[in-house]
């Protein structure tokens, strides 16, 4: 009987526990709803912080998705076919062509670099020459001005000069108009039309090209005299498969049928692979920057929640006195915070979702990209989850602290509630929320290694700034009592209980660190590209010099006063096909070395080590070496390939496979702009293969035009690449990327400023009170302003100093380890950030102080 009643009681208590839980949530919701009626006044910074971070991540994700979808929708046109087959130097074999033609219509084209000149030879320009057959293009359309079918445009004019369709950039550079004659290599053409758009512009030899495009008919290619043995000519074959055909399967079948061909085969899903890689990397990077903004904003979230709960102390105490449990209090306020977080997140998503609309113009102009418009749920969902998780991770702690404080103390603690840790479940919940946030950031990143480094860096930086905040407080305490009252009050403000020092240092510091790092990375890249051109850097690269033209080339250079040292080296292109006998695509290759396998690499042979060679392993061969093929290889790539001295590399040059043993490893400094080859063969292996000569020539800037004219007049098949032009092109690209990166980095600073403004606003009531009491005790406005100046000035200075150190460390790691460039500290960039920090802290701090100073004393002092 007893046991039955006990069991029944147990059941009842189980049921009542369930009811109690439901009741608790319902009650918490009712309290939350009533409290939310109070408005969003204290939550402006909270909402802005979340919205900013979420908007950044959503915008980057949406933009990337829009570009991806745009690329996918135009994939066939971008590649020029369902299948693209590319081979360097020579056309594919008749059997291979027949195999392709059996699958569907094929268009063949050839592409090479060449020089275009005016008839009088006064103007000239490096161009990308593309010779196309009648079937071109299989997908999309070539747009010309005037608009006309290509076949008609390519037809010879009255004087028998075949037509060329020339990019507007080349026309302007050469001062030509439609109808004018133009010399391409050795051949005489006429400008039939301006090239406006080319569907497969991004495909072919890469999306970064050095010269504007010129289209001619395949049949007119011979007239240019550019087709010579060993010249760098890419042969393209593009196939339109039947609608139901599987491009991937066809690609696999073709590769299997012709396994040894030195051919690159792509299907349309690989289209614009270089650009996609680039977009992916940029997206990954910008997403991380967005996450930083969100983290910085998280500090603002925590501050806002704390300030909000400080204002609710009497309400909470009253609720508790009336019988509300700790859990009910926690739940009621958690619900409120999450509802508000939802609002901030939705606002951020709305901004992020429309971002592609605003970026489309810029992207179309810079990269010729057309975006697919639409709402992309996945990136938006991800941004939303990031936002809500951040809000949760940063608000559990202050919520739990409010829950812990007994009502009696709540009534009493005016400013500095006793600092105590929340109960362990809440500490654990904070850690879990943070860990989920970190894991999500890593799991959703394309480059998980980069994301993991970022997370570790972010945690490290947060710890560093937390430590820095404590250190600054400690130092202010240790500073003793200086004679100046303003200085003493300012210092005291920094370390007083409840001071905003830790959160300001943390949030502003994170933002400034990102800005310093980005500024230093950008500055170092710019230096590497433009300002740090070594004195001995060549003025020109000359490509495709035939071995029998070397004498004429030397003579042409010698005829130009101001032209200096000439370096020549034989040059072939070959693809690394096997490592230690295993096909390269089956080898585990480190990501940073993948690029070396993606296309043909420049090769040379030499008896002597290059002047700039730094042998780091093995020995250079004797100058009279003859024997089995030996290779001198790039030390970085060897690391990436996981090979060393004694291992073998097999290279396919013009269809012939050549296996050599690695005899030594060189550290290559690409920044010197001298001739550098990843692979140098010992004498004996490559001399017989058809090759051209690559030359670099130093020249004074004044001699540059004469040098280019002398060489390309004497040797019309030779292409001249002006180093300055190449660097300018790279610089232009860097500048447009730099803008996007800096803009995103600036967002983290904006988040930092928001947090600072929030901290100042949260302390406003206290500051007004302090200012009023100080005035009662005889402090002038000047003295109180001076104290504010000291407080915010020192805070800004100390924060910027720590940010400068951390940002410099981060940038040096990125510059030296990821980009493999030389890193130098750029004091100007750091000074700018320091100045910015001071302007921001003093500016925002003063804005708050100004309002505090203007407050009338009497109303605050009257008895209640």
């Amino acid at each position: 009987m007893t046991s039955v009643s006990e069991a029944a009681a147990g059941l009842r208590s189980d049921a009542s526990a369930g009811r109690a839980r439901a009741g608790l949530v319902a009650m918490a919701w009712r309290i939350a709803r009533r409290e939310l009626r109070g408005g969003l006044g204290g939550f402006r910074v909270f909402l802005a912080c979340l919205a900013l971070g979420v908007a950044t991540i959503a915008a980057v994700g949406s933009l990337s998705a829009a570009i991806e979808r745009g690329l996918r929708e135009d994939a066939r046109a971008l590649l020029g076919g369902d299948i693209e087959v590319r081979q360097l130097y020579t056309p594919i074999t008749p059997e291979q062509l027949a195999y392709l033609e059996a699958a569907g219509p094929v268009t063949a084209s050839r592409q090479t670099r060449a020089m275009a000149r005016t008839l009088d030879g006064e103007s000239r320009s490096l161009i990308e020459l593309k010779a196309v057959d009648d079937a071109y293009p299989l997908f999309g359309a070539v747009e010309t001005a005037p608009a006309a079918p290509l076949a008609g445009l390519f037809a010879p004019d009255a004087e028998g000069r075949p037509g060329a369709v020339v990019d507007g950039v080349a026309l302007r550079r050469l001062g030509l108009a439609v109808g004018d004659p133009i010399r391409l290599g050795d051949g005489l053409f006429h400008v039939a039309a301006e090239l406006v758009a080319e569907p497969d512009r991004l495909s072919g030899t890469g999306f970064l090209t050095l010269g504007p495009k010129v289209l001619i008919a395949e049949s007119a290619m011979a007239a240019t005299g550019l087709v010579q043995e060993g010249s760098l000519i890419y042969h393209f074959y593009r196939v339109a498969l039947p609608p139901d055909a599987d491009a991937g399967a066809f690609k696999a079948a073709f590769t299997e049928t012709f396994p040894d061909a030195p051919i690159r085969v792509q299907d349309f899903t690989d289209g614009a692979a270089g650009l996609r890689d680039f977009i992916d990397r940029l997206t990954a990077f910008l997403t991380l920057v967005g996450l930083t903004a969100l983290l910085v904003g998280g500090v603002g979230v925590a501050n806002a929640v704390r300030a909000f709960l400080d204002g609710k102390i009497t309400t909470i105490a009253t609720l508790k006195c009336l019988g509300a449990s700790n859990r009910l209090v926690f739940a009621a306020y958690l619900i409120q915070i999450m509802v508000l977080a939802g609002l901030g997140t939705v606002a951020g998503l709305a901004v992020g979702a429309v971002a592609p609309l605003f970026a489309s113009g810029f992207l179309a102009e810079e990269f010729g990209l057309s975006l697919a418009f639409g709402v992309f749920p996945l990136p938006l969902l991800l941004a939303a989850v990031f936002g809500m998780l951040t809000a949760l991770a940063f608000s559990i702690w202050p919520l739990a602290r409010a829950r812990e404080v007994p009502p009696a103390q709540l009534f009493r603690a005016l400013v500095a509630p006793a600092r105590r840790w929340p109960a362990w479940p809440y500490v654990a919940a904070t850690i879990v929320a943070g860990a989920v946030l970190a894991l999500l950031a890593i799991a959703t990143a394309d480059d998980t290694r980069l994301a993991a480094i970022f997370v570790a860096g972010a945690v490290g930086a947060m710890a560093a700034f937390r430590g820095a905040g404590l250190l600054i407080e400690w130092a202010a305490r240790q500073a003793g009592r200086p004679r100046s009252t303003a200085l003493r009050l300012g210092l005291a403000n920094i370390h007083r209980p409840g001071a905003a020092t830790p959160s300001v240092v943390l949030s502003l510091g994170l933002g400034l660190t990102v800005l310093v790092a980005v500024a230093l990375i950008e500055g170092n890249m710019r230096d590497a590209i433009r300002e740090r051109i070594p004195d001995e850097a060549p003025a020109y690269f000359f490509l495709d010099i035939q071995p029998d033209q070397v004498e004429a080339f030397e003579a042409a250079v010698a005829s130009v006063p101001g032209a200096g040292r000439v370096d020549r080296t034989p040059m072939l292109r070959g693809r690394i096909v096997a490592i230690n006998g295993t096909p390269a695509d089956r080898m585990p290759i480190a990501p940073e070395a993948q690029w070396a396998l993606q296309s043909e690499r420049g090769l040379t042979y030499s008896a002597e080590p290059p002047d700039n060679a730094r042998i780091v392993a093995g020995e250079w061969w004797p100058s009279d070496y003859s024997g089995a093929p030996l290779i001198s290889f790039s030390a970085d790539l060897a690391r990436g390939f996981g090979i060393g001295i004694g291992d073998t590399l097999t290279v396919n040059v013009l269809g012939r496979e050549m296996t050599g043993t690695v005899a030594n490893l060189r550290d290559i400094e690409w920044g010197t702009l001298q001739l550098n080859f990843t692979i140098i063969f010992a004498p004996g292996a490559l001399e017989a293969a058809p090759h051209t000569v690559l030359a670099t020539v130093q020249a004074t800037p004044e001699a540059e035009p004469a040098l280019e004219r002398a060489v390309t007049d004497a040797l019309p098949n030779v292409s001249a690449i002006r180093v300055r032009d190449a660097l300018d092109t790279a610089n232009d690209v860097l500048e447009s990327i730099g803008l996007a990166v800096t803009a995103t980095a600036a967002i983290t600073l904006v988040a930092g400023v928001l947090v600072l403004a929030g901290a100042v606003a949260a302390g406003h009531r206290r500051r007004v009170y302090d200012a009023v009491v100080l005035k009662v005790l005889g402090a002038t406005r000047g003295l109180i302003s001076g104290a504010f100046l000291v407080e915010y000035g020192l805070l800004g200075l100390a924060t910027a100093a720590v940010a400068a150190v951390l940002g410099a460390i981060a940038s040096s790691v990125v510059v030296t380890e990821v980009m493999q460039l030389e890193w130098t500290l750029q004091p100007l960039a750091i000074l700018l950030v320091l100045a910015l920090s001071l302007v921001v802290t003093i500016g925002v701090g003063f804005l708050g102080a100004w309002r505090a100073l203007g407050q009338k004393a009497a109303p605050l002092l009257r008895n209640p």
Partner: protein
Amino acid sequence: MPHPTHDCADPRGQAEPVVSLQDVRLTLPSEAGAVEILRGLTLRVDRGETVGVVGPSGSGKSTMMMIVGGLERATGGTVRVAGRDLSTMDEDALALFRRDNVGIVFQAFHLIPTMSALENVAVPLELAGVSDAFGRARASLEAVGLGHRLSHYPGQLSGGEQQRVALARAFAPEPVLLLADEPTGNLDGATGEKVISLLFGMTERTGATLMLITHDPRLADRCSRTVRLVDGLIQADGAAPPRAAAAQ
């Protein structure tokens, strides 16, 4: 019946009074039209006097005190305190004037919550450029029996202790005039009694002039003179307790 302002018990009656109000008025604009808070107040307080200011709520006691302390500006009349005409001074000059002449004790204590007791007391001394500000602050706190609470923050002190800190702060710079607005209003009887003993003891010891707003008739009785305000005007002024005057 107003007490003649020149008729006071001070032996140095010919000297300039510490507080001299002539026809002081304060009119504040409000949505319902201008509100007259003070309607022509004239009062003279001489050095060493202890003046109890009594009157019903809204009679203008606190406003008069704010005007004497330079915290509120009269809209009419002349206000002279410690020989200075407050109406010609700007905000900063008023601050310096308070620093040098006036100590104020509030009902709500008005300590700076983020400063320790010692720092709170040292502030006016520091502002005055006193070289041994913290030494004197310590002595002042010891004088109110809080030598063991120097590093405590206001939030860690009881109400009585907070008011004693406020007393120490007000007296530390040795002002000529001490203004106290319901200093025991937030304290229980016993604690209030202790604070009042300190207040009067210190006033006597430093020779300061005291103006004390209170609702407590016993407290008013301890003053050498009592002024009763009603509706913005002085209704009674004399050595006799105002309730006696009111009863007459």
